[in-house]
């Protein structure tokens, strides 16, 4: 009984690790030069004066700087 339980736990752990690794390698939302972007913010931007989406900034170059790993 104890062996079965340990085996189940190990299988679960392995599955979780595989899943985490697959998710970490998900590059679907990553941008690359040439990609057309579009995004709506759900909260007002600080100092945004009405900006709710990237399209509101059209007409200028937009430098999006990330202080976190995305």
């Amino acid at each position: 009984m104890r062996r079965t339980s340990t085996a189940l736990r190990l299988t679960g752990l392995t599955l979780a690790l595989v899943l985490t690794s697959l998710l970490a390698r998900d590059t679907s939302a990553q941008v690359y030069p040439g990609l057309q972007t579009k995004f709506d913010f759900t909260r007002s931007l600080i100092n945004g004066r009405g900006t709710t989406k990237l399209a509101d900034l059209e007409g200028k170059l937009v430098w999006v700087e990330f202080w976190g790993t995305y």
Partner: protein
Amino acid sequence: MGTSVPAALKLQDEYQDSLQVVFIEGSRVTSDQMHAFAIDKGWFDVGTAAMWSKEAPFKTGESVIPSYALLDPTGKVLLKGVTTRDHKKIEEALEEFAKARKKGPKDLPKAVSKQVAEFYKGKPGKALKALSALTAEGSRASSEDQAAAQTAIDTLTAAVERDLKRLDWLLDNGFYAVAEDELSDLRKGLKGADEWTTAVAERSTRLESDELKSERSAEKALLKLQKKLYSKGTGKVSAKSLSAIAEKYPGSQAAARAEALIAVVEAD
């Protein structure tokens, strides 16, 4: 957020008309804490146009911070990478874009390109009028020039409409001082463009109306306190002084902004 922020702020200031910097904060701080941090760093004191958010619009896939993506005016990704590594590359792209904007797009007929450049030099009314003349009946412009002029009219008209929409947001949300500056620029820039004169005049009338008198006084009081907050930091402006504005002008836009700033001051 560290040393590369002032570098981005410097470029934001330098390229006001052609660049918008948006910082995305990824740590576990709240939006109010992030705002307080930026205030205490003095980043608002310089009157920056940069914006901050905690929502990532996309991923850069970089494991080093700060990472970035530079988008063209239509939202297409031009560059991406690590800011500190690519700073020169970003600066060059900005310089090139600003220069091209001053000269007008190379891929357009000369007559059209010249007017696009005039538009971005602060003369949108004059530029749109000249472009309309190119497409008018009886115009001697070639069909190619006429087609290019029409495309330019559509794009530039959308830009003016965006400015007016932004102005409406400022008026609706109590940012009257900024609205006044922007209205003044629009009034000068659209002088002679009859189709826009009414739209600008309507907004001027609204701003000067008796209806907004009390709201504008409230904003004036708030801006005085906000100036102190931005120059001295969150520790030097009390929640009590911000509350006093909210109490003196209940239900006003300035009261709502003062209350939002209380959360920022208290989040520090």
